[in-house]
Every structure is written in C-alpha cells, then in structure tokens.
C-alpha cells in the first residue's frame, strides 16, 4: 500500500438524563414538536442556565470508563454562531478547559488489540431540529423548527488520529458504543441521533510521522456509513495524490445514496465561533470525593468482565465477548450461573435460543428471570424433557414467566416413558407395519430404525429412542 490513512473521530453522544442540560425540560424522544421546551431552553430574554448534576455525573463516569483524566476544574464557554435551531445564538460548550483530557479505548482489531487514544471529553448542549419546505435553508419556502432537542446534554469525545481505516473506525465506534451502554451513560441509539460522528482523515506514506492535509467528513449516519465514507475518502485522496495533485483542506458530506463524499463549497474563511467563558455559569470544580463516588458507581467494564468470564467460567473468548456485549446479558449469565454449573451449555443457550426468542418476542433480557432458563436446562439435563420441547417451551416461558415445570404439566409436554405408556404405541406400530417387522425378524437391522422412527413420530418426539428401541426388540424377539 502506498499510503496510510490517518483518521481521528469526533463523536457526540446523547447522555441518558431525564432532563436537559440547563433546564428541567424532558429529554424524551418523539414528543410533539416544541412540547418539551421552556423559557430557558428557548433562550428567552433574561433566562439563565442551571447545570444538570446528573449530566455531569454521567459525563464523569464516561470519562472514567474511557480512562481519561477528569479535571478538577473545568469551565463552560459560549460558542457563538447564528442559526435558527440555536435559540441563544450560542451553544454552551467547553473550549479550553474541558471536563476530561487524555484516556483511550483498547479495541480488538483483526491484527490484534490496539489502544486508540483520546484527546478530550467535554459536555455541551444540543441544538434544535430544522425541517425545510425545500432542500436547504437558503431556498426553502419556509422552515419549521422544533426545539425539543435544544439543550439535551451531549458528550463530545475526540480521538487522537490513531485509526487507520474505515473498518478500524467502525470497530472503534462499536467498542465505544458497548462501553457507553455498559456504563449506562447513554443508550446510544443512532436512529434517534443519540450518537453522531464526524471524522478527520488524511493520507501519508506508511510509517511517516508527518500528517498530510486533512479533510473533514460529515453526515455519516450509521457505523456502516462511517466505514464506507472513510474508505471512499481515503481512495479519493489517494487518487488525487497519484495524479500528482494536492489534497485541499475542506469539509465533505457523505452522500448515502450515491456512496460518495461530496466536498462542500468552501465558505469565505473559516468559521470564527468567538469562544469566551460562559459568564452565567460558575467554573465547575469537581471534588475528589465526587469523582471517587462515581468510580464506585461504575460497573465492571466489558473488556475486564470478558476476561473474568473466561477465567471464572471457562468460556471461549468469543462466548465471553458475546455475553459482555451488553451489561444486561452478562448480568443474566452470571445470575443464572449461580445455580447452574454447565457454563458453556448456559452460554450456548443464551447466545442461541434465548437471544433469538428475545428478538422474536421483542422482550428485553433484563425482564427475564434467569431462574426460568436454569429450570428449563435442568429439566432438559435430567431427561424430563428433550431438546425440541425445551425450544418449543422457551417463547411461552419468556412471555408468561411461568415455571417450565408447570408449563410442561399444563401442556402435557412431559416425556412419554415407561412400559405402560409406550407399549400400546409399539403394538400399534408393529400392527400397522407388519412388513417391516417381518424384515427385522429376518435379520434386517435397518428395519428397526424405521420402526423406532414411527413410534417416535406418534409420541411427538417425546419418548426416549433407547427405551423405544429396547421395547421393540423385546416385542420382535421370538417368544421364549
């Protein structure tokens, strides 16, 4: 490869607070336009911001989980610009004294695990949403604005230029999403816009310490789009350089339809946001005790937990990684493992049937009693039910929460066993298939398998083939 891509990401994540960053309005998604607004988040004259304590706590937790150094003193600044979705004509953000500096996230790439360093993490407020009657604000007949989102707390995470491909960017984002969900800092729903990502990308000869001219890529609305857009942009820059051209520093939009990056018309000069310290808020001093308390509130982080699950339960890395992808799944596994010791079997059932059925039924794993699955597996292990029955029971088990033992009794799904239950069925099969019976008597062992199959069919698969086999042999053997 002639060039190496150098990629840094700027990620905005919506924090899962109930109220906005500077007022008490709800952050609920999907409300009637302009119904979650008040004089403060509408920026009416004379109103003042009051910082949401929970937002600070969540931001600090995210910073701790990302191994950042949380600053004892940080500050809010105003980022000034005019746009109709920005009620005060400035966004309250953090500029030169962010909440946290440094840190990083270890990401499993195909070539091995690598630490992607972070530059900073800071808090800021979200803007409103515009809908244009036309294709842009400059030529629309009119534009509608919804301020429900204005003032929702955002965490901005800026990485160092440590990523080398679109795929690496996607893998990093997936790892970040897992971590943020895990810590409960954000629910990270991309379709609701609660995670957004812009990227800076440049090329250089592999191994070179210098950075090339970068472009900024925006409007990537999914992790897949990030991967495609960055790979496309890297190719575009490479082609320019191949031709002996020069990459121009500019902002590009990812066109999802055409799968290309489109340079935006360069504006006269770069934007000057006239940052200055927000005089309506005091500098934020975070006491050590406050940070320590949040450290204790942090759950065991996914990578560490994955390693522990491997050691403690003898799971394969893949299994452990799957179980720790969400905190709820791992919690479910560990709760079930307290009373069920075939851990690999448990992990397999969770990964396979349970997740499948949850997806089918739309249930959350956190709503399921791990004891029910354990009971089901124990019945399976003891032979009270067989595997197809267990699978059949699972959906109802999940939806009703009824004990599998009761379900089996109620639906008559228990195993059919014992001479008394099986003998009539065996007799019936022998009567209906006298040819096959005769073949067996004349030494064709294969005929027995056919007969076993018929009996099993009559029981709906709920008999034990061994027992059926034995009974058939007994009936077919010459009378003493």
């Amino acid at each position, binding site marked *: 490869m002639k060039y190496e891509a150098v990629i840094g990401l700027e990620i905005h994540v919506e924090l899962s607070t109930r109220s906005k960053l500077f007022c008490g309005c709800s952050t609920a998604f999907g409300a009637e336009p302009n119904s979650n607004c008040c004089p403060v988040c*509408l920026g009416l004259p004379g109103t*003042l911001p009051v910082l949401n304590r929970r937002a600070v706590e969540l931001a600090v937790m995210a910073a701790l989980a990302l191994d950042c150094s949380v600053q004892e003193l940080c500050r809010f600044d105003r980022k000034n610009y005019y746009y109709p979705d920005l009620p005060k004509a400035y966004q309250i953000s953090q500029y030169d004294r962010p909440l946290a500096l440094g840190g990083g996230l270890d990401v499993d790439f195909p070539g091995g695990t690598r630490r992607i360093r972070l530059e900073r993490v800071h808090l800021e407020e979200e803007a409103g949403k515009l809908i244009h009657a036309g294709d842009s604000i*400059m030529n629309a007949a009119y534009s509608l604005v919804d301020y429900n989102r204005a003032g929702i707390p955002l965490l901005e995470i800026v990485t160092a230029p440590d990523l080398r491909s679109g795929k690496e960017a996607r893998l990093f984002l997936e790892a970040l999403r897992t971590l943020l969900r895990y810590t409960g800092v954000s629910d990270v729903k991309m379709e609701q816009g609660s995670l957004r990502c812009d990227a800076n990308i440049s090329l250089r000869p592999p191994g070179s310490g210098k950075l090339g001219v970068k472009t900024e890529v925006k409007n990537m609305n999914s992790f897949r789009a990030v991967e495609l857009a960055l790979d496309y942009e890297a190719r575009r820059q490479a082609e320019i350089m191949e031709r002996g051209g020069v990459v121009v520093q500019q902002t590009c939009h990812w066109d999802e339809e055409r799968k290309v990056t489109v340079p935006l018309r360069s504006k006269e000069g770069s934007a000057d946001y006239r940052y200055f310290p927000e005089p309506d808020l005091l500098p934020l001093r975070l006491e050590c005790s406050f940070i320590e308390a949040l450290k204790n509130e942090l759950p065991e982080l996914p990578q560490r937990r994955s390693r522990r699950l491997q050691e403690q339960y003898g799971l394969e890395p893949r299994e452990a990684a799957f179980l720790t992808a969400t905190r709820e799944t791992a919690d479910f596994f560990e709760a079930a493992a307290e009373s069920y010791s075939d851990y690999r079997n448990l992990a397999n059932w969770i990964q396979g049937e349970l997740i499948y059925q949850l997806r089918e039924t739309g249930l959350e794993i956190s709503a399921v009693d791990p004891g029910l699955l354990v009971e089901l597996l124990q019945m399976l292990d003891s032979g009270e039910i067989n595997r197809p029955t267990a699978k059949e029971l699972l959906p109802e088990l999940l939806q009703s929460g009824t004990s599998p033992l009761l379900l089996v009794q109620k639906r008559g799904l228990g195993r059919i066993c014992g001479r008394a239950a099986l003998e009539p069925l065996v007799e019936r099969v022998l009567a209906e298939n006298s040819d096959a019976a005769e073949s067996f008597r004349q030494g064709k062992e294969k005929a027995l398998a056919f007969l076993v199959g018929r009996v099993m069919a009559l029981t709906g698969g709920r008999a034990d083939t061994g027992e059926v086999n034995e009974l058939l042999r007994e009936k077919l053997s010459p009378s003493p």
Partner: protein
Amino acid sequence: MELYELTAIDLSRLLQKMEVSAVEVVQSFLDRIEAVEPYIKAFITLTPAEALQEARAVDLKRIRGEPLHALAGVPVALKDCICTAGLRTTCSSRILENFIPPYDATVVTKLKRAGLPILGKTNMDEFAMGSSTENSAFFPTHNPWDLERVPGGSSGGSAAAVAAGMAPLALGSDTGGSVRQPAAFCGLTGIRPTYGRVSRFGLIAFASSLDQIGTLTLTAADGALLLALIAGHDPLDSTSLPQEVPPYAASLEQSLKGLRVGVIVENCGEGFDPEINAAVEKAAHQLKEFGASVGEVSLPHSGYGLAAYYLISPSEASSNLGRYDGVRYGLRAGGENIVDMFSRTRGEGFGSEVKRRIMIGTYALSAGYYDAFYLQAQKVRTLLRRDFDSAFKDFDLLIGATTPTPAFKIGEKTEDPLQMYLCDICTVNDALAGLPSISVPAGLHSCGLPLGVQLTAPPLQEGLLFRAAQALEQAQGGAPARPLLGPPVEGGCLE
C-alpha cells in the same frame, strides 16, 4: 404634604398604622404621574389598574390582620429590562417593543409576594447601554431637577420617577454605573449590590458578568428595606450568592466609630468639577465626625478600568444579544432568506449605540484579537480586584465622586460616544471587581443640580454602605433635597 412626597418608610408607617390605605397611596402616585409624567417621560408602560388592584388586595389583607411585609402597599417602578409576566418588557428597544415575557424576574416575584403594587415599567437606554437614557428607542427622559438635562442612565427612567415623586421606590440595573450615576444626577440613593447578591433571573442581559439589579430610593433606609426584600440566593441563577441576607435596616443606627474610610484619589481631584471634589471632601469630613478615620488610597490600575469595561461589556453583549434574530419572538423583518431576515431584523430592531457595542464586542472576541482585547481586559479586571483587595486591608470603606460632573444637557454628548463613556469613569471599577457600591446625595451644586458621592465596600457589606449613607444624610440635616415638587404650572423646574 402629599403622600407622593413621602419616603417609603414614612408611607409604610402610615399604612401599618392604617392611617392611609394602600389604594390612597397608589392613587396619590398615579395622580402625580398624570400631572408630571408628560414633562418627565419616565415610563414606557404604566399599569395603574393592576397597581390599584394589588393595593386593594393589600388593604384587604391588612383589614383581615394577615401578616404583611413592611413595604406592602408601597408602590414601586421597574426598569423595563426586568421581566414581568404578561406585561410588555421592551428594554427600550424596537426589537422587543411587543415582547411579553411569560415569566416574572425573581425580583418581581419577590415584590409581588410582598405586596408592592407595580406602577409601571421605566425608560432606559436601549439594552442598558448608555449614561443618559437618550439611547431609548422611544423617547428621552428628562431630569426632574432641570427638564433640559438628562436624568443619567441607563436607569434614567427609574431615577427620574423617584426624584419627581412618581414612585417612592424603583429598581434599576447597574452594569457599569447605571444605577449609581442616575442616582447622583437625580439626587437619590442608588445601590449596586455585590455581584450575585440579587438574582439576575429575568433581568434581560447586557453584560452577564457585570449586570446587577439595584435600588433607587429617596433615602438609605428606603434602600435598605427594598434591597433586603429583593436580595438572596436564587436556584435559577447559578451566579447568585448563597449567603443569608442580613436585615440591613436593623443595623442602620450602628456607630461608625473606628471605621477606616479611604478617599480614592483617582475618583476625585483633577478633571472633576470642583464642587464635586468639595462634596467628596465634605462627606469624608462628616464621616470623620461620626468617629471614622479618614485617609487617602490609590487604586493604581483604575485608569485602565474604563477601557477594560468597554471591552468586556460589549463582548458579552455581542453574545447576549445574538438571540434577537426574529425567529422566536420580538421584531421580525421580512427577508429573501434566513440570512437576509437576520440582518434586516437586527438592522431595523437595534439602535446605533447597541450596534456599535455589538460590533466592538464581536471584534474583541474574534480569533486573532481575543488575546489582545478580551483577555487583556480580563487581566485588568484581576489587577483591579487586587487593587481593591489591598485597599481593603487598610480601609473598611472607600469614598469618591460618583460622576465627574452633575447632570449634563440633553443632546450634549450624543454626538460623541467617548465623552458619554467617560461618565462611567468612577463607577466601572467597582463593577468590574464585583463590589457593592452606593451613590449618596451630597447636596446641591451652585447651579442647583444634585451631587452624589460614591461609597464602596468589600463584598457583601451592603449593610455598611447603608449605614454610612444614612450617617451622611443625617449630617446634611435629614432627608435629601428634592426637586421642586409643586404642580408643573407653578413650579420653576417643571415649566
């Protein structure tokens, strides 16, 4: 003597003894307004019906024996940058000409809860930017002492209303002197409290790190009562101070013995009207007679204060005023597209002084200029704070002139913004340092206009300021002089 000639305390006593009703008190002020407002033009909006209604409610409560605040039934006028729910709040700007806030400022909530009838909203320099009230988008206000002169600014409407007997109490706002300078020009007591002492919630912002609501009253005692009512921590204002508010009025009579008073050498002397210098000297002497010691003190960096103030305040203003874009409320001028609408709305909605300051502030915050202007000004602010800190090691109270001259003529300085800015030379430094500062009447100039001296105290020492102010009142023989208060046809001032 008419009711409208009385101080708030005197009215309060009459009301509490039930010698007069709140309705009678309010009616007296409404009559006075009807008589002299056409000459003074202190109010943008009058609310006589609402004031009478509140007065009736207070009277009823008093008859029922319900507990009432000492100032219940004593009416008040509000500067028109203080938001009142359901009542137009214009900031004397075309851009907010029809703006009706859906909320009360915290101070208004407190006034309403205490039963003070609101007479109306007073004129001011647009967005509080000015020192003469000539920058009002609607009309200038006249000084009751001489109708050809300005009442000062930016709280000129509030000052003129109290001086002319149209309201016994008024609230103003002080960013760099906007309560104290009009108090001096109109012969009133005007206090700018410690930054954070009074909630700014509902005060339409000019320069957030400097804005404070203050009181304009006839006497120190009136000011002590009114400030105690509006001060205090407010969860809606993160910069408001948590400390309890002491009952300022209770300590007014305490002795000044042993008090160390420093005369700020930069706030008098050369460049000041000699009669003002004499007034400062006299006031210092009077405090000495009450047992205080007097010395001189220098604030070495005070010469940079005005420049720093005229960088920091426009910088913050350029950001605070960005929201007036025609999208959500206030004036909206049509336009070809959004940028055109923004430009035309702001072009038509703001007056020239506001535009000038937005431009200065935008420039001072711009990349490449920030360090040289805004940051440098903030450094001056730190140096000024240190100057004051060191002055307060040797002194308990500082004294100087409030203004270099008495009230000037309407139109005299409108062509020269720099001359106008120089009016704030003595008042900006305390504001930059966030200190409490009061302008106290100090007799009359030989030309018949009132003079003011300014006292400055360490943070949260408002009680001390009122005490010293009351002592100066007593030394001058009781309640300060008033402009001729007779009916306009007979009075010399109101012809």
